[in-house]
């Protein structure tokens, strides 16, 4: 690879690797895990979800009650994906 300006030029590759490392290091250095800046929403769910939905599992109360519309979208995505698979491979089964 002697062409100048190629994407595989060694100098270009070194710059790319350094940039990618720096970008990947930003979340590791700059963010504190388990200590979000605003925690009012999660504290609300922990305090109120059992009273408001009656479910002991807070995750289930969020997925199926507070964010139920999102779950409906997820189920529709899965349905359409399987529909596509069944249409593409419809000759394999009768």
């Amino acid at each position, binding site marked *: 690879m002697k062409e100048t300006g190629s994407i595989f030029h060694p100098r270009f590759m070194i710059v790319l690797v350094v940039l990618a490392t720096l970008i990947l290091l930003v979340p590791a250095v700059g963010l504190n895990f388990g200590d979000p800046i605003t925690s009012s929403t999660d504290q609300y769910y922990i305090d109120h979800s059992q009273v408001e939905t*009656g*479910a002991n599992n807070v995750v289930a109360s969020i997925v*199926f009650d507070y964010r*139920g519309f999102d*779950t*409906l979208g997820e189920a529709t995505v*899965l349905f359409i994906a*399987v529909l596509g*698979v069944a249409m593409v491979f419809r000759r*394999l089964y009768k």
Partner: protein
Amino acid sequence: MTLGLIGRNAGRLLVPLIFIFGFYIVVHGHITPGGGFQGGAVIATGVALLLVSYYYRDCLERFIPITNFKLVESAGLMLYICTALAGIVVGSGLLFNWLNASGGLFGHPVAYGVNPGDLFTAGTIPILNFAIGIEVFGALSVVTLIMFAGLQEKTQQEEDAEAAESAAPLVSKRKKGKGGRK
């Protein structure tokens, strides 16, 4: 590609237990970790094991035509949508938890704080869990069935005939080439 006798029989023993465990995960979704997606995936794993441990075409003839799974999948999504729309009719909005603490089905009064949990609490959440569970179960099973259809696996009779042919030394070579897959 074929599984041995021990593997097949172990699979046949394990399939009902896997179904029961997946059903447990789906039904207890609002009490313990888990839920519809996870439990449905576990039950679909059982279906895949069923297809491996029985032969694919025998299995399709004996228990599970592929249309049934499509029906189950569509029924799950329809149950979810109908429960969501019932919130508009009965309560105040889409997906409103109108069954919670109503005293009827899934409406037992809830014990607050740390408690072992009651199966009949949480209103519409168990129903939605069940809907998502059978939807994911049907979807993953359809995909698994279609992939198995592409494998063109032999049935038990064909495999036995082939084994008998290769075991018998007196059979002529012309006959030996004719058995097997079409």
